[in-house]
């Protein structure tokens, strides 16, 4: 097995993973969410894929592992090993620009540490926190005082 061949097999897996979506946030792929930590396929046997949880108790974690397994199996890769990677801990800073765009288009304010929380619908900064916790462990609930719409915001960690 040559190095080039390894790289192309791994690239193929990255391409497949880009089509696996977070079940709670179907607009964002697991790659854009920043939770795929590594893809290694150095030799015979199946590839190893490192996944990190966003939050310790995120209930989507099991579903994401299953979705990754089934995506790879559908592409004929049946012996993938999924490893849980805890360190370094996931951070919302790992969301890709594509994830930011997709979240905003979906009505969820992307995480912007230090910046004002901007309404994803009308782009007003006149917003207020309703609850520290929103629809998923990674979101908090806000309200826009300009357009009066409620929205979720991806928490900054």
């Amino acid at each position, binding site marked *: 097995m040559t190095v080039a061949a390894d790289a192309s097999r791994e690239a193929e897996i990255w391409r497949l993973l880009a089509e696996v979506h977070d079940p709670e946030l179907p607009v964002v792929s697991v790659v854009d969410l920043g939770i795929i930590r590594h893809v290694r396929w150095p030799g015979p046997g199946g590839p190893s894929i490192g996944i990190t949880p966003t939050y310790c*108790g995120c209930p989507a974690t099991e579903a994401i592992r299953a979705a990754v397994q089934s995506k790879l199996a559908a592409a004929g890769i049946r012996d993938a090993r999924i490893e849980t990677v*805890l360190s370094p801990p996931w951070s919302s800073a790992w969301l890709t620009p594509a994830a930011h765009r997709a979240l905003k288009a979906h009505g969820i304010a992307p995480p912007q540490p230090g910046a004002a929380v901007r309404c994803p619908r009308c782009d007003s900064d006149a917003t207020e926190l309703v609850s520290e*916790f929103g629809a998923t462990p990674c979101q908090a609930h806000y309200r826009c005082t300009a357009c009066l719409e409620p929205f979720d915001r991806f928490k900054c960690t």
Partner: protein
Amino acid sequence: MSTPTLAAARTACVLRLADTNLVLAQRLGEWIGHAPALEEDLGLANLALDHLGQARLFYGYAAELEGGNRSEDDFAFLRDESAFVNLALAEQPNTDFAFAIVRQLLIDAYQLELYAALERSSDERLAQIAAKALPEVRYHLRYSSGWAVRLGDGTPESQRRMQVALEALWRFTPELFACDAIEQVLAAQSIAPDPAALESRWSASIDPILARATLQRPADASYPWYGKCGVHTEHLGPLLAQMQHLHRAHPGARW
């Protein structure tokens, strides 16, 4: 107690961390459908999920350390009350929302110091789990301290209830900082901190919150319970009965 071996102490410590998180998660989960507002229903459920997730990481590590056949589910569902080694504070009931907030505040401020110390543990796995859990705990403390101030510095009734909860739960806090033989062994190896060393930082974090909440810090009392040694208040048994019932009635059942 005779001095435990390093391996026994390490496993015991990991189980204490797991049990405290699991029991607290179960207590928080009892609010689902009963919280004073939908937002708090979601908030308390999210706290419960974080604690459950942390418990699972610790149970998984405990299972590896034991090296036997016990799984995280065996630890959670097939041990009796006296085998649980959670802090007694975590098992105290949801008397009202003030009790839930005070219990959370006292534990959040404690876990913040505990995990910050464990993040520097010589045990790599403990350090990784603590680093993972730390941002969650910081967020929990924002939630619990926000409610503590809002209710304490609120109406006469909310202030009264918060003070009642604080008086009732304060007597369980000495256990957080009491050091036993297990913790001595681990502190000597820089695996876990000496709990006594966390107390001043915990106080420095709690006292300003109590002041802003216009609550009086209760006097320290002698401490008769040692949840982390398996000696529990009468509240843990019913909690476990409810939590374990399904698994014990239908062993090995799967969704």
